[in-house]
């Protein structure tokens, strides 16, 4: 068990990092969390014994489950972001903005919890976000991040639709992606009111009127920059 754990976790650390020697005490805590199938992340937050993050990588799995986990991962990221946005509002946040951002936070939490419940035992673990590049006190930083997340979510769902086999899952993804697109337009409108930006030429191709559709292999590396937990997706359908 110990050997296997080390191989798995060390093997998946980002390339430049030196292999991390896992102390016995941390390992026991780590292994214990792993065995109970859950809160590895809670233990990892307390990193005084080992400043280099040691975290179990999560693999999205295969088949439709992997696509649902992919969506679950993105919803976790969005929900964590908006939870922080509402917990520590940027300076000058208007009441209207707070209402709008609270709505979005609630939708993303519902999406996250929905996927977790729908996946049941197949759900990946909770991911630890990495929001060090975001200045939560600054409106521009927050709204531009929100815009990036919403656009990324739309392109991810659009790109993953054709990978889904079960028509019921496809229908559910369809119900969620348009909500993300509604969010994206609203956030873009906050940044540049009543301009063409709500569906700007930077995101909707002017010649075709088509939104982006990106494969998981494009989306995940972008999402990964906001997530400490290493996400692997080697068995996704193609």
């Amino acid at each position, binding site marked *: 068990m110990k050997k296997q754990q080390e191989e798995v976790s060390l093997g998946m650390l980002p390339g430049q990092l030196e292999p991390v020697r896992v102390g016995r005490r941390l390992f026991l805590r780590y292994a214990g969390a792993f065995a109970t199938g859950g809160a590895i992340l809670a233990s990892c937050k307390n990193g005084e014994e080992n400043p280099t993050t040691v975290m179990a990588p999560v693999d999205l799995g295969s088949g439709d489950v992997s696509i649902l986990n992919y969506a679950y991962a993105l919803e976790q990221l969005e929900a964590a972001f908006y939870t922080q946005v509402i917990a520590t509002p940027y300076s000058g946040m208007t009441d209207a903005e707070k209402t709008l951002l609270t709505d979005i936070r609630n939708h993303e939490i519902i999406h996250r919890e*929905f996927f977790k*419940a729908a996946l049941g035992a197949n759900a990946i673990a909770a991911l630890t976000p990495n929001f060090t590049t975001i200045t939560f006190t600054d409106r521009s930083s927050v709204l531009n991040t929100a815009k990036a997340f919403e656009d990324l979510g739309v392109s991810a769902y659009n790109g993953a639709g054709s990978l889904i086999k079960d028509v*019921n899952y496809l*229908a559910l993804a369809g*119900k969620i992606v348009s909500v993300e697109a509604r969010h994206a337009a609203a956030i873009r409108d906050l940044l540049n009111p009543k301009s063409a930006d709500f569906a700007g030429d930077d995101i909707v191709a002017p010649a*075709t009127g088509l939104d982006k559709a990106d494969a998981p292999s494009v989306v995940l590396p972008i999402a990964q920059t906001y997530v400490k937990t290493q996400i692997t997706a080697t068995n996704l359908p193609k």
Partner: protein
Amino acid sequence: MNLFKIISDIEQIDPEVSERYSFYSRRNLLKFGSNLVAAGIPAIVAGSLNKALAQSGAPSAAAVATLQFALTLEYLEDEFYRMGLAASGLIPAADTKVIAQISKHEAAHVALLKGALGTAAPAKPTFKYPTGTFTSYATFLATARALEDTGVAAYKGQAGELINDKAILTTALQIHSVEARHASEVRRILGLKGWVSDPAQTTFTQGGVALKTLPNTTGFTDDSFREAFDEPLTKAAVLAIAAPFLG
């Protein structure tokens, strides 16, 4: 030609559909490609659609019917915004950029779908508009909201029909989310929220999951649970909504 006729035609021809659409022969496959080029569709889009055709031999009857249905809705949206932009004094200067951007996309969607359908593309129907549509901005915006929300729900309702036509499904999804962006913006100009809270949604259940008992949602209003999932509309329901516009 009207929406009802198109749809009943499509439904009635089911048995012979493969014959009727046998224009997807190799020769017409090439024509399909050239239509896309003629319509100004970037080669990458034309390429992916042609690739799907090459793989499956032809788009399924369901996919062709769905594209025809979508084109008819896009015809309506396209004409509606063009007429709105042409109506003197209707759209305030402050909103022109938004409406023009939407109009640009609807025109692109018509060109895309016409190009994809080639000879199977239905002609543009003659539409009529309720009194005041192009003289009252409030009426125009309310109509825009109805068309956009209906468009989102219509594409969503047809996604399952495209599950075996992967490239077409992706394209439809890419249109679907653009309609959702439009809907959100029009709603916000109207002073509404960008998302939909449908009071008809009383089960608060999605995919067998009871939403209101989910963890971490204590204190969330019914609106939040309703807004988090956009609901689809069936073809019949969309047609009922489109009925007032049929000439």
